[in-house]
Every structure is written in structure tokens, then in C-alpha cells.
């Protein structure tokens, strides 16, 4: 871990590289989407929100998936680094998710005349946002690092496992037909900015997760290795029987 720590402080670390690539791709993608790509046939210029909205949605899904994987790794290994990665990706997921809802509302208003529709995707993303905000709040509230690792990761696993069933229930509950054109059927002038922005959001997400991971990991690993606070002593004694490290 020592060598990793040294590499972390080098100027060209993977998260900084990813961050810069992401920002550049996003700038080029958004520039093309705003000024180069032609206006959408039905939605006119409002259709340009597509180039910021859809990439955010894809990246958000990927970030939440990463969060689920990290939570599983944290539960399985009991290691602080996965715990920190879980929190970092949950933070970025919540950020993307909140941006997604804002973009969706700003798209819905000129298109349908309302800020909110009970579209399954929109509604699901709102519920998932609340779920992962709950995970972050839970982590803030727990002070003992081992319990925070276990309980936070369990909440994240449960939240992620619920996403498909939330989606299907809302879909059955209210079906709103949203005439999205799939990327396979639209012309290149639409695809290029969409792809650029999508990879931009993904690389940016990786960079942001890495940046937060580094800071959180220092804290979490320091707390996990530090002698427990007096208030946490009873737990530590029980811990001799094996929780935390369990697997």
C-alpha cells in the first residue's frame, strides 16, 4: 500500500488523467451538441438537451453499478479501501442523479409543458436518488469505522438490488410513451456529440470517484487502524469474536 500511496501523489495519477480526458471530451461533445449538430426534427433546439441528459443517465447507471460492486467487495473483504471507494462512487452517483433530474425537468417543461412527468425512468431515478442519499446519510451518522463499513455497504447493496423492481413497478403503474429515438437509428451528426459526451461523463466520473476515493481512503484507513475511541471499546471487545474482518 506504501507504493500505491507514493504513486497517488504523483502529478500523473490515473484519476487526474481520467479527469482531464473527461473534461476535454465533455467540452468537445457539448460544443458539437450545442453548435454543430442540427436541430432535432420534432423538438427543435430543445432536443439539444439530449447531449447532456442521455450521457448523464448512462454514466449515472455505471457509477451506481460500480458502487454496488465496491459495496460487495467491502462486505466480502472488510477492507477500508473498498469502503472508501463505495462512499466515493455513491457521492458521484448522487451528483449525476441530481443533475439528471434537473436536466429531465428542464427538458420536460418546453416539450410537454410540465416540469415533472411520472415516466418510469424519471420516477425510478428520483427514488434511487433518495435511496443513495439515505446510504450517504447513514454513513455520516455512524462514527465507528467497522460498523460504518458493514452497515453502509449493506444499505448500498439493498438499494441497488431494488432498482430493477422499482423500475418495473413504476412502469406498470403508469406507462408514459416517450418517443426517444434510439442511437442506432439517428444520423451520425447526432451520434458523435452523444458518444463524446457519454465518454466524457464516464471518464469524468472515474476521475471524480478517484479524487474522492483518495481523500476518503486516507481517513477510513487511518480510522480503521487507529486504536478505538473509548466510546467504541465495547464493540472492539465483541469484535474479537470475528465481525468486521469476518470473511
Amino acid at each position, binding site marked *: 500500500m506504501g507504493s500505491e500511496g507514493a504513486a497517488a501523489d504523483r502529478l500523473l495519477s490515473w484519476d487526474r488523467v481520467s*479527469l482531464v480526458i473527461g473534461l476535454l471530451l465533455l467540452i468537445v461533445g*457539448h460544443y458539437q451538441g*450545442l453548435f454543430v449538430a442540427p436541430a432535432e*426534427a*420534432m*423538438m*427543435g*433546439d*430543445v432536443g*439539444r*438537451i439530449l447531449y*447532456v*441528459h442521455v450521457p*448523464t443517465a448512462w454514466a449515472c447507471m455505471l457509477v451506481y453499478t460500480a458502487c454496488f460492486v465496491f459495496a460487495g467487495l467491502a462486505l466480502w473483504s472488510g477492507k477500508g479501501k473498498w469502503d472508501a471507494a463505495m462512499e466515493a462512487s455513491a*457521492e*458521484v452517483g448522487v*451528483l449525476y442523479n*441530481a*443533475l439528471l433530474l*434537473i*436536466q429531465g425537468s*428542464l*427538458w420536460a*417543461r*418546453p*416539450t*410537454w*409543458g410540465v416540469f415533472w*412527468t411520472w415516466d418510469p425512468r424519471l420516477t425510478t431515478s428520483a427514488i434511487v436518488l433518495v435511496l443513495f442519499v439515505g446510504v450517504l446519510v447513514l454513513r455520516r451518522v455512524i462514527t465507528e469505522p467497522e460498523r460504518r463499513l458493514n452497515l453502509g455497504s449493506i444499505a448500498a447493496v439493498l438499494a441497488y438490488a431494488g432498482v430493477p423492481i422499482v423500475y418495473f413497478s413504476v412502469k*406498470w*403503474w*403508469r*406507462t*408514459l*410513451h416517450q*418517443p426517444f429515438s434510439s442511437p442506432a437509428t439517428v444520423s451520425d451528426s447526432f451520434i458523435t456529440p452523444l458518444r463524446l459526451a457519454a465518454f466524457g461523463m464516464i471518464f*469524468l466520473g472515474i476521475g*471524480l470517484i478517484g*479524487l*474522492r476515493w*483518495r*481523500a476518503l481512503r*486516507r*481517513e477510513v484507513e*487511518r480510522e480503521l487502524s*487507529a486504536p478505538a475511541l473509548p466510546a467504541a471499546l465495547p464493540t472492539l471487545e465483541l469484535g474479537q469474536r470475528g465481525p468486521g474482518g469476518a470473511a
Partner: protein
Amino acid sequence: MNEVVEPVATGVITGGWPYIIGAYGLTWAGLLAFLTRAVLLGRARPPESP
């Protein structure tokens, strides 16, 4: 099962630039704010206890 909400607009939507600028602007504002926060929190080193 439920009423199906059809898009209200029937013709080509014109204008809407305030919404477009809002969507892009708020997205960038959010991303840059998070980035700034992440950088600041990353700089603030806790006292090392080796």
C-alpha cells in the same frame, strides 16, 4: 390501465434556449462545484498517524 399522456406539442418546438442554457449551465455548475469540493477535501490532510 391509466391514461396515456401524449406529448402536448404537435408541431416543431421552437426556441426553448433558456431551458437548454439552464440544463447545460446547471450541469456544468454541479460538476465543477463537486470537483472543487473534491479537490479542497483532498488537500486538507488529516494529521498523519503512522
